[in-house]
């Protein structure tokens, strides 16, 4: 490149702000041309200046103002969980009742074996935990699907 043929403004900016991607030819020219190197230096100075321009701030307490206006968010999942817990408890007691009624003799034998009781209890607890976890995950997803006004349903607004 002839030294009299100066680089375009875009090439100068690319070199000034992202020297690694500006290309060898541009770098060689800038090293030899005082006009272009002056512009590169000025853009670099400008970039430094733009990174310290004072930031504007709201002149009121935004957090306080917004929190004062928030509508109460419904904690609607709490009654659902209570309902599920009640139904589960009733189910468990009913199952135990039926089992005791049908297997009185077997139950007497089992109560004598502590390892069977502890394994059985652990399995029941694990099963209950998995059920609760699965439920809480899916309730959230189902609620999100049911929101027709959701911003992210609009392709242009989805982030």
């Amino acid at each position, binding site marked *: 490149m002839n030294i009299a043929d100066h680089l375009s403004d875009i090439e100068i900016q690319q070199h000034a702000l992202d020297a690694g991607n500006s290309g060898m030819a541009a770098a060689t020219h800038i090293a030899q041309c005082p006009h272009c190197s002056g512009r590169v230096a*000025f853009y670099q100075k400008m970039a430094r200046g733009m990174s310290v321009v004072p930031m504007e701030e*709201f002149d009121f307490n935004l957090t306080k103002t917004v929190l004062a206006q928030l509508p109460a968010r419904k904690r609607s999942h709490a009654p659902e969980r209570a309902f599920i817990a009640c139904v589960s408890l009733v189910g468990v007691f009913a199952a135990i009742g039926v089992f005791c009624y049908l297997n009185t003799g077997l139950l007497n034998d089992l109560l004598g074996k502590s390892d069977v009781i502890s394994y059985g209890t652990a399995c029941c607890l694990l099963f209950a935990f998995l059920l609760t976890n699965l439920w809480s995950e899916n309730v959230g997803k189902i*609620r*999100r699907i049911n929101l027709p006004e959701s911003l*992210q349903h609009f392709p242009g607004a989805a982030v």
Partner: protein
Amino acid sequence: MDHKEHHKPTDRVLVERVLSGNTRAFGSIIRDTEGLVAQIVFKMIPDREERRDIAQDIYLKVFQKLDSFRFQSKLSTWIARIAYNTCINQLEKNKASPIGNEHPAPTNPEDEYPQEYPDAHDLEENLTDAELNGLLESEIEKLPALYKLLITLYHRQELSYAEIAQIVALPEGTIKSYLFRARKILRERIQMIYNKGL
């Protein structure tokens, strides 16, 4: 990374807390993002009273839509997107006012400014940092709203092209191109002011 920063709850934790009814967690979200939101609102909306209403409106929308946030971006980027859209809607409402003429995309600002100015070498050497920073501050404010915003998000907030693209819903190439133009306008204006004598 300082100690406080290290123990900061993640976006997911904050969102889940808000969704379970913890409004203090929402306060935390506001404090974390109001700097970015303020930059967007200040660059897009010139009227002080409108800014106040819009800032509140933005966070009320965020609160209402929070359960639709899918964690496909940073929470701050998603909130910034809502802020940008809210400002755009406001500017569209104000179409008749002079504010509307500045926005959204500048047509061809290069046509408005003469191309040839004396060498930048003198400028770089003779303009002190304080003088340049003062000029930049005032000249950035005179740019069209979108250019102002892009300059601030890229240079001041140090967001990536990808993050800016998510906020303003423009391709990364367009954002780069607008940034080139905006910086060129700034350089030419500063040179013009310098040549006339500070």
